[in-house]
């Protein structure tokens, strides 16, 4: 690997940790980001010549802090932030041990709780989290969320202005506030994962990378929360991590060489990542032990039942139907009811599934949703009503805009 790749790799791995400390020391998002950017330029100049430091994060923090001070000195005439230069806390962090012997404090919890503060818009929370903790560039985030780069840039700028202007604290919330605030954090991570998971074949790589990014953000969050027992058990965080690992374990089997979607029942289960499934189930078991159920744990349990079925026919559909019923109590959405109806149909036969799907309230709520018509079509096909099945697939196709999903529906119609 050439040194540029090594530097890139280290930077991505350490970005959140280094930035979270610089923000704490400097008390300013923009200053910390600018300082880190300059530090990366210096690293690219020096590391190839001098070698990569033993503790790259400590090196980046030290250099980043000096860059920030240089920058403040240059701006001193403008009278900005001179107080910081005399701040004893800042000075004491000036020279962390460069040998790598000293543990660097991990400030990422503060950063993620600030970036996911409910006073910021949900879009801004997602963007800020990916930018600061994930180290993605503004352009990468814009591409992943299909918005123009200037729009994303403005979104990030506005969010940082609000953090500064309204004095959103850079802190882990109090124990009483944790449940509500952690909900907001988990929701952001879930949105990031889903954005990547829904971006199937034909979409750009950066979107699919969001799944890996969400996992890279969630696993350290779980570890950091567990290192703070005074905050109480956090089974929903464990449940979310489990859910991500279990869904992501199927990635190699979800599309074929041409990028066409392969449905769960047609996937080659040998391609599922067993190590990831075991890790997901392990996390879920630890979550359930806390006996505080929640929507992420229930969704992870559903994913685990799929992951642990050796063949589609051996899937525990009655249990899955039951879990969707419980999920509905937390998130009473028609899509959850759709999934329950499908599970019931798989457990008790296509006519039982159709009866639930054709409940007038559900049919009305989901009439514009292509997966609803695809589910109806699927049960009609299984029940050998070929004409009605074809009509329902055609309706689904007309409503569907994703290229890979359209191709799948087209294949179903052709097979009838």
């Amino acid at each position, binding site marked *: 690997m050439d040194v540029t790749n090594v530097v890139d790799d280290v930077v991505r791995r350490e970005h959140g940790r280094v930035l979270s400390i610089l923000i704490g020391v400097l008390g300013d998002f923009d200053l910390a980001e600018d300082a880190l950017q300059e530090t990366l330029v210096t690293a690219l100049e020096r590391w190839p010549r001098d070698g990569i430091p033993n503790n790259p994060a400590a090196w980046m923090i030290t250099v980043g802090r000096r860059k920030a001070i240089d920058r403040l000195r240059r701006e001193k005439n403008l009278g900005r932030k001179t107080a910081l230069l005399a701040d004893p806390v800042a000075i004491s962090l000036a020279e962390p041990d460069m040998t790598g012997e000293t543990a660097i404090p991990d400030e990422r919890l503060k950063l993620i709780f600030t970036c996911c503060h409910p006073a910021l818009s949900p879009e801004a929370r997602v963007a800020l989290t990916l930018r600061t903790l994930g180290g993605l560039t503004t352009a990468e985030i814009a591409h992943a969320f299909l918005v123009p780069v200037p729009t994303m840039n403005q979104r990030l700028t506005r969010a940082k202005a609000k953090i500064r202007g309204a004095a959103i*604290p850079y*802190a882990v919330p109090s124990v009483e506030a944790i449940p509500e605030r952690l909900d907001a954090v988990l929701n952001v991570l879930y949105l990031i994962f889903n954005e990547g998971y829904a971006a199937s074949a034909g979409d750009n790589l950066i979107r699919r990378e969001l799944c890996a990014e969400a996992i890279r953000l969630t696993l350290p969050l779980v570890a950091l929360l567990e290192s703070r027992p005074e905050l109480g058990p956090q089974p929903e965080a464990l449940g979310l991590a489990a859910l991500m690992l279990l869904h992501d374990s199927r990635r190699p089997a979800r599309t074929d060489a041409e990028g066409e979607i392969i449905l769960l029942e047609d996937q080659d289960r040998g391609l599922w990542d067993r190590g990831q499934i075991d890790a997901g189930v392990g996390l879920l078991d630890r979550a359930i032990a806390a006996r505080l159920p929640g929507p992420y744990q229930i969704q992870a349990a559903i994913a685990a039942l799929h992951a642990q079925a050796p063949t589609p026919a051996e899937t525990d559909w009655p249990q899955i139907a039951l879990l969707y019923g419980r999920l509905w109590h937390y998130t009473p959405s028609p899509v959850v009811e759709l999934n329950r109806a499908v599970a019931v149909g798989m457990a008790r036969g296509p006519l039982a599934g159709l009866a639930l799907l054709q409940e007038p309230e559900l049919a009305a709520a989901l009439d514009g949703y292509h997966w609803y018509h695809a589910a109806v079509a699927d049960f009609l096909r299984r029940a050998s009503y070929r004409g009605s099945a074809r009509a329902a697939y055609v309706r689904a196709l007309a409503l569907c805009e994703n290229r890979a999903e359209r191709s799948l529906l087209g294949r179903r119609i052709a097979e009838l």
Partner: protein
Amino acid sequence: MRYLILIYVDPATYASVSEAEQQAEMAEYYALGPTFRERGWDVSGEALQPVDTATTVRQRDGKFLVTDGPFAETKEHLGGFYLVDCANLDEALEFARSVPDVRRGSIEVRPVLEFS
């Protein structure tokens, strides 16, 4: 950091509130200032007379225009305000949550622009 806590309420929602409830709510309001002063937050504020006592002034093309009523035609009107000096937004939001009208109306939290 100073925050203006703006209390917006729809006067129509008071119609269904009983006398006893109103008195309990007033007691809650009276308790707010002292409670938070104990936390070291500097609190001041006022309740306002009903919105039909409001007058709006504008200057357009050099001419003053004085009109009856609030500036915006909305159901929820500014009913009162607090000015709180506390550490950060989380503390200001904690204050906002304890304003009794949070249950019926909306509480807007606005950081004060400091000219220093």
